[in-house]
């Protein structure tokens, strides 16, 4: 049997994950293409769960596709759209379809998405969801009822290493570890100084950390993210670097920057691996990896 994602992370190898954004609709062509393109180049692929509160093909469906094509899937599961009954039922189903990794998220709030009048469920939130997985592994649901056939997952969570203020985030991180999260994929990091500080704190816990790498494609995007995406801080040098290239070369520069960061993180063993989010530019992930020498 192929090595599990947990085994890969525990092997000490520099781990690479990436993500698939499923389609809005039933046309899976592009999604399948991205899966085929990436499944052997990375150690696991996340599938986003109605990311940014925008309704899409489900994360669970995307993970099944990855499994069917021989890849390793990480099921992203948010608490925004399902109550505790639905979350548990989906987890049972995922398990029976061979999915073994789960990223436990609270989920974005409703108003940022494309169904602005919907009810945000949030019956549970990330910390409680991690605990729920661990409870179900012990053979009962969170109502205390026995399961006929339990589950076993490798639960992960996210953390925002550049949040401001950072202290409450660090406490939440600690809570997620205590709840049973074993690996973390971080929000995008661009300032490795900040990230090193975070890692100094995080190293005291026995968990694996994958640094989030979000591909920048232009100085404009970088500035937009600084102004609009909480917890993201693109340093001025990087913005200048992107602004310095001739028109049409932004993407290439972004690829170079991403590859360089990955290289540095690996060479200096800052953390255990990277999670590459190309957001619509999945095609380019192999190139980033090639330039990073991976």
């Amino acid at each position, binding site marked *: 049997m192929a090595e599990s994602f947990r085994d890969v992370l525990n092997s000490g190898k520099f781990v690479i994950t990436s993500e698939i954004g499923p389609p809005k609709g039933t046309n899976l062509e592009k999604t399948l293409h991205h899966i085929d393109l990436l499944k052997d180049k990375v150690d696991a692929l996340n599938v986003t769960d109605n990311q940014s509160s925008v309704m899409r093909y489900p994360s669970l469906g995307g993970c099944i596709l990855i499994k069917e094509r021989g890849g390793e899937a990480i099921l992203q599961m948010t608490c*925004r759209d399902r109550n*505790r009954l639905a979350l548990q039922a989906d987890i049972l189903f995922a398990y029976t379809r061979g999915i073994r990794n789960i990223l436990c998220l*609270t*989920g*974005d*709030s409703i*108003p*940022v998405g494309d169904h602005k009048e919907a009810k*945000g469920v*949030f*019956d*549970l*939130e*990330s*910390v*409680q969801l991690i*605990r729920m997985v661990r409870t179900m592994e012990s053979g009962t649901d*969170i109502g205390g009822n026995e399961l006929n056939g339990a589950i076993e997952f490798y639960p992960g969570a*996210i*953390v*925002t290493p550049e*949040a*401001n*203020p950072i*202290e*409450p*985030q660090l*406490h*939440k991180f*600690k*809570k997620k570890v*205590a*709840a049973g999260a074993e690996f973390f994929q971080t*929000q995008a990091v661009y300032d490795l100084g900040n990230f090193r500080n975070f890692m100094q704190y995080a190293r005291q816990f026995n968990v694996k950390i994958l640094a989030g790498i979000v591909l920048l494609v232009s100085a404009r995007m970088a500035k937009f993210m600084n102004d609009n995406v*909480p*917890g993201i801080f693109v340093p001025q040098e990087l913005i200048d670097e992107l602004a310095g290239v001739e028109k049409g070369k932004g993407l290439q520069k972004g690829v170079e920057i991403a590859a360089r960061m990955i290289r540095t993180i690996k060479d200096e063993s800052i953390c255990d691996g990277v999670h590459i989010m190309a957001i619509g530019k999945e095609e380019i992930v192999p190139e980033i990896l090639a330039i990073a020498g991976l």
Partner: protein
Amino acid sequence: MIVAKQKDLEVIVGMLQGYERILVLGCGTCTAICLTGGDREVGILASSLRLADKVSGKNRLLKEHTVERQCEWEFLDEINDQVKEVDAILSLGCGVGVQAISERFPDIPVLPGLDTLFMGMPQEESVWVERCSGCGNCILDKTAGICPVTRCTKGLLNGPCGGTNNGKCEVDPEKDCAWTLIYQRLEKQGKLELFDEYHPPRNFQAVVRPGRFTIK
């Protein structure tokens, strides 16, 4: 207090279509304090309605009155006689007031002139903020007197989400992130250990709808 805002005049005008004798009824408690349903607002709204009637060539009876509190039957006795003269009551109380009147005078339609928003308090001039959602299981002792159920957009119980942005909430830069406030106040009180305490999933049945409370 209960905070409510007035519906748009066109909506109210539409609601009142077909009625000839209307009692515009204010409430002297919460909605008077939030300046949307007290004596003064009853006067202003009745004048606007008269003006609208004039423009459309109507001549309806529009009576005005404000009781001290719409949500308690004993305060409604004083309108017994007026109610007999009208064919509809337009309430400027909260949703509780509307229902209390309707229960007391079930033969006559009681219409809501306000949209009830939340339980809260005045924060600064012309600004009211929500503070409690009546969850039935108060945890303010653990959260430095700041309600995460209500003041965190997602109602999180175990600390901030990743959307917290320089102390503001991801959905609205005008709103404080409740969990940043909780952290800062716990720190000030030397009680940060409470921040690390695990809160299990909420009991959403702590108040089974519709809520009912009996003193034993």
